[in-house]
């Protein structure tokens, strides 16, 4: 028995509206913390204790205080933080790590997927096995190694250990395996060497995988807390997480300043998100395999 189309349409319409309503309300709830943060960032210190969101007395001074444009009115001193420096450091370290990791992983993945050599699968298995080991196991000896290399408290010390990754190699290898063998055979017949095939044939084809790896590497390093916490000594090397943590330790009771600084630190991340959102939300395949 077939229902009349109009009734079906009404039913579906109601269902859809309810869905819209539900998801919109959910989005509202998910954004509550951010709204609260923005509101608190613009409250005066006397108002922070209040239960309301919207600041009765809008005070943009907090932002100027944490940007060191004006001194803290209570101490007449500039607050001890350099947000822009942290953001630069974070971007600097994360960019280097991302570029190096994508590049070295790409090369290794090529060797593991397009070249046949004896012992290949055994070496690859070793790579795979180490992926199971928690990063925590590695932190302590890595620090000892950095000590003996005299790289503690340097940019290099932050960049180099993260520049090589078994995960990236694994992911890109899976990706490259899906590229038909005929492409490089054709290139080989044309007399191309491995380097040429790698640069002109495989790399362009592996681009989606490289982009995914790049995004995750960049984000992971931008956020990373433990390694810089152990490695960094000087204030001018601080990345955003370390800087914010130190600021929280020093000004933790000044909620409005803390929220202003947090807000500013989130802005570059949100901008990055706006740029990357298509890649993130639509096409990511985390399993490291090939897109279907």
């Amino acid at each position: 028995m077939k229902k009349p189309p109009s009734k079906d349409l009404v039913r579906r319409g109601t269902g859809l509206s309810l869905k819209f309503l539900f998801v919109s309300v959910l989005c509202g709830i998910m954004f509550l913390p951010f709204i609260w943060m923005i509101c608190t960032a613009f409250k005066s210190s006397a108002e922070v204790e209040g239960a309301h969101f919207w600041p009765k007395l809008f005070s943009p001074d907090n932002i100027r205080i944490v940007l060191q444009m004006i001194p803290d009115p209570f101490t007449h001193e500039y607050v001890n933080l350099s947000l822009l420096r942290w953001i630069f450091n974070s971007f600097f370290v994360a960019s280097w790590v991302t570029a190096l990791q994508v590049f070295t992983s790409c090369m290794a993945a090529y060797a593991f997927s397009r070249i046949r050599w004896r012992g290949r699968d055994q070496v690859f298995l070793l790579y795979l096995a180490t992926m199971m080991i928690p990063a925590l196991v590695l932190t302590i000896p890595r620090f000892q190694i950095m000590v003996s290399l005299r790289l503690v408290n340097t940019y290099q010390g932050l960049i180099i250990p993260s520049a090589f990754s078994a995960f990236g190699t694994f992911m890109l290898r899976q990706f490259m395996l899906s590229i038909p063998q005929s492409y490089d055979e054709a290139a080989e017949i044309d007399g191309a060497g491995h380097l040429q095939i790698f640069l002109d044939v495989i790399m362009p084809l592996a681009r989606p995988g490289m982009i995914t790896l790049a995004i995750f590497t960049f984000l992971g390093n931008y956020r990373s807390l433990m390694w810089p916490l152990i490695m960094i000594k000087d204030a001018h090397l601080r990345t955003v997480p370390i800087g914010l943590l130190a600021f929280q330790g020093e000004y933790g009771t000044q909620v409005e300043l803390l929220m202003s600084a947090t807000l500013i630190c989130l802005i570059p991340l949100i901008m990055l998100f706006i740029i990357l959102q298509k890649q993130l939300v639509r096409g990511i395949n985390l399993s490291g395999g090939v897109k279907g």
Partner: protein
Amino acid sequence: MRYFWIGVAAVLAAMSLVAYRITPRLADDGRIPLVWTTDPNPQREPQVAMFNEMYPHLQLRIDPDNTDSTRVTVQSSAGMGPDLIGRVYDAVIQSYHEAGLLMDLTDYAEDMGFGLDTLPEDIQQFVSLDVLMEDGTIQSRMFAYPANMAQHFIFYNKNLFDRAGIPHPPDDMTWDEYIDIAQKLTVMDEVRGVPRVFGAGGAIVDTIIYAHGAEYLNESGTRSTMDRPAFIDAMVFLHKLYYEYGVEPTPLQQAGIASQGGWGAGYNNWFSEGRLGMIWGERWRMISFRRAITEQKRAREIWFAQNPDADPDDAPEILRIGATQIPRMPDRPRYTTAHARSVAINDANPHRKEALYFLQYLASEPYAKLINQGSDSKPPNKKFHELDLFINPDWPGEEAVHAASLEAVQYGRTRRRSMLVTNATINHIFEQVRSRIIASPDMTREMIAAELERAADRVNLHIARNIKRNPRVHTIYDALLAQGAEPIVYNLEDIK
């Protein structure tokens, strides 16, 4: 793809260049650099400037970001520790020594004018450690010199007392009187359920332990005494201070107060703002109180300019400070916790000899004058502990505070140390108990006793393991036994 990678390389190179350019470098002017890890208290600036003036071949600067002992130890192990380790407290001096970071000062101190005899007795114990020498004897050696010292006493806000109509605290206060006064001062905020004005705050656990005749260790340092009745009494009393008498802000109540002002926030500001009646501390609190008073004077002037005809009683108040000694138990002498923010020389760094000049400077008159006038607790050299020297003509009316600070020296007491286990380890174990006591409103005496028993057992196990595993500690233990020390709790044969 090649061009893409060339582009990436170019961007990275450009960023590296920027990073290189904005990396600060020390001007190389032939002076020997010295780094001192210490807090960025506003008093540091003149102290450093004066040193650099007095010793022109040296260049001292402070490092406020790496003061905690974890960072100092880890960084020193990486060969980048400071020259002057600036916050050598009781809890860490043994750990630093175990880490091999402390230079033995005994042979230099006397000749350079910063010998032990310049310090009060309690502080002498603070900067010395008993160590096993190469010849197998145990000797007391000096490893640090204080940048300033503190024997805690109590500040009170006279305005709050007068408003509540309570007489000021007596000079010889007992704990009962203290609790009574603090309760009278407390004003509840009925809406939020947190006191708007706290009666008192900042009580020091060690002082409470001493007040009950308890200690963390037995006399020879071979056993933990945290499970003894006197210690349990002290902890039960601590719990009551928070949850029965309500005269100490609980962690929860503290979270309820957002405060203003960056450095030294928290209790100092609550006190200045009139939200705390009595506060434990030393003269260093005066640094922020003075700042608050300056601020309040300005606010008052502005108020008078705006309301020329108003009643002066309605104008914003200016903080008036009184001072008295730490309370004592009726049947026991008064003890207060002695504390010294000491400086030690990093044994691993190249400029050890030059760093000695800094300790010499700490014992000198110009430095003592800076401390005295800036009210940064008390200078280390007891030669300069005099009321006349403490008084700053710009800040009249502080005599009571300075006098209390001087009087407190005689009550000062430092914690016992064991050669078999560090106080850092004991603290670490004790802190778990303390935090649980403070976080749990409904803890009974039995529960506290059980916690302490476990803690004492852990310390005792630590002691036994140290002896068993470290031949050096075993030698010390044998020597202690020969001196008639109480044997440890555990049987060494049972320890693996």
